[in-house]
């Protein structure tokens, strides 16, 4: 760790941190910590300082420190943020309030229970279901740059769940499949190599799926990877509506729900 003391910075900053220790049997509370202020520190650095120097009982998730693993998401002054990308200098000298991601159940301190989110990705089947099975000897599944472009944006998702914490629909209905899982469903539905759109349709196009979305649009605003889950959901609505009309006009001639690939 860098030699903080030799910086002789006397500036400090206060962090008001959400605490919940299930074994103590106490209701959740906020605890204020004072940390050194450095303009190259992010909120996660401040939390690490607290854990190392002030209070080892504080719990939170993090890993990469560089905005790729998606595990350090928390509410910073009420906004869902990757704490490894939220600089103290953007808040200094105000006190910063750090809370676990909104709407998710809290397991301890800043750690939320993400099981439900993982389950949803399973329900949507966010993996490639090959359109045609072919033996390895037949070589790779080829794709043109134009075919790649159709879904590439949605592959950028790092499963950080910030979008869920920005979504009042998810806040009101925890069963809503939600922005990231739907965007990832679209990611595979729009992939020319994928043939799983019909298998995903039941969940994606259900009442807990795209039709629960009222297009608040904040998921796309908070997404650190520019995935635009709100856009993905609206495009899926168009696809679902087209499919419905097609099945209506041409009984038996229902096209699969992948949209134009």
């Amino acid at each position, binding site marked *: 760790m860098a030699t903080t003391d030799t910086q002789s910075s006397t500036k400090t900053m206060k962090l008001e941190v959400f605490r*919940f220790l*299930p*074994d103590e049997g106490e209701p*959740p509370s906020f605890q204020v910590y004072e940390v050194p202020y450095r303009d190259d520190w992010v909120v996660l650095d401040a939390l690490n300082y607290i854990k190392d120097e002030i209070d080892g009982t504080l719990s939170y998730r993090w890993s990469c420190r560089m905005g790729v693993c998606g595990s350090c998401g928390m509410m910073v002054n*009420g906004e869902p943020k990757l704490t490894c990308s939220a600089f103290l200098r953007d808040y200094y000298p105000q006190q910063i309030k750090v809370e676990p991601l*909104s*709407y998710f*159940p*809290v*397991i*301890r301190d800043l750690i939320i*229970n993400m*099981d*439900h989110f993982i389950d949803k990705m399973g329900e949507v089947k966010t993996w490639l279901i090959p359109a045609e099975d072919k033996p390895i000897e037949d070589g790779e599944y080829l794709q043109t*740059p*134009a075919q*790649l*472009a*159709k879904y590439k944006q949605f592959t950028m998702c790092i499963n950080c769940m910030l979008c869920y914490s920005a979504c*009042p629909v998810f*806040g*009101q209905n*925890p069963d809503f499949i939600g922005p990231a899982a739907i965007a990832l469903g679209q990611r595979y539905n729009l992939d020319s190599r994928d043939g799983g759109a019909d298998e995903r349709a039941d969940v994606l196009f259900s009442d807990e799926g795209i039709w629960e979305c*009222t*297009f*608040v*649009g*904040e998921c*796309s*605003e908070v997404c650190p990877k520019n995935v*635009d889950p*709100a*856009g993905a959901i*609206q*495009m899926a*609505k*168009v696809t679902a509506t087209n499919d419905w009309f097609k099945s209506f006009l041409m009984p038996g001639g229902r096209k699969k729900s992948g949209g134009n690939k």
Partner: protein
Amino acid sequence: MDNDSSTPTAAGPVPAKQHIRKMPVNWWLKKPAYLRYMVREITCLFVGGYAMFLLMLAARLDKPEAFETLLASPLAIGLQWVALPFAIYHSVTWFNLTPKVLVIWRGEDKLPGFLIAGAHYAGWLAVSAGLVYFAMSGGTDG
């Protein structure tokens, strides 16, 4: 989701006591974007109200007297003045969102959003201009 679910997962059992946070009833006041969303949703009441008014007018199409009385009544004029700004706000917010719904690909590139929203605005203007022209020219001989 109940308060003390202890679902065993691959990572081991989850502690029995989880803290569930209630969504505050005033969530829509917490962020300007949420408030704008709520306003957008509320504007549809006025758009709906105006549609009712149009239906009432349509029901009087064969009775010019009744049609004009309704059209000229202070209540109807008031309603239109109130509904107009809401209808404009409603249309503008939705037109601005059209690029998210309508994605047109040219090879590897998306057609830029401003073109898609712009096309909607152009259509809106054209239809409005057409209606004004129709009303004006119809008004001279009626």
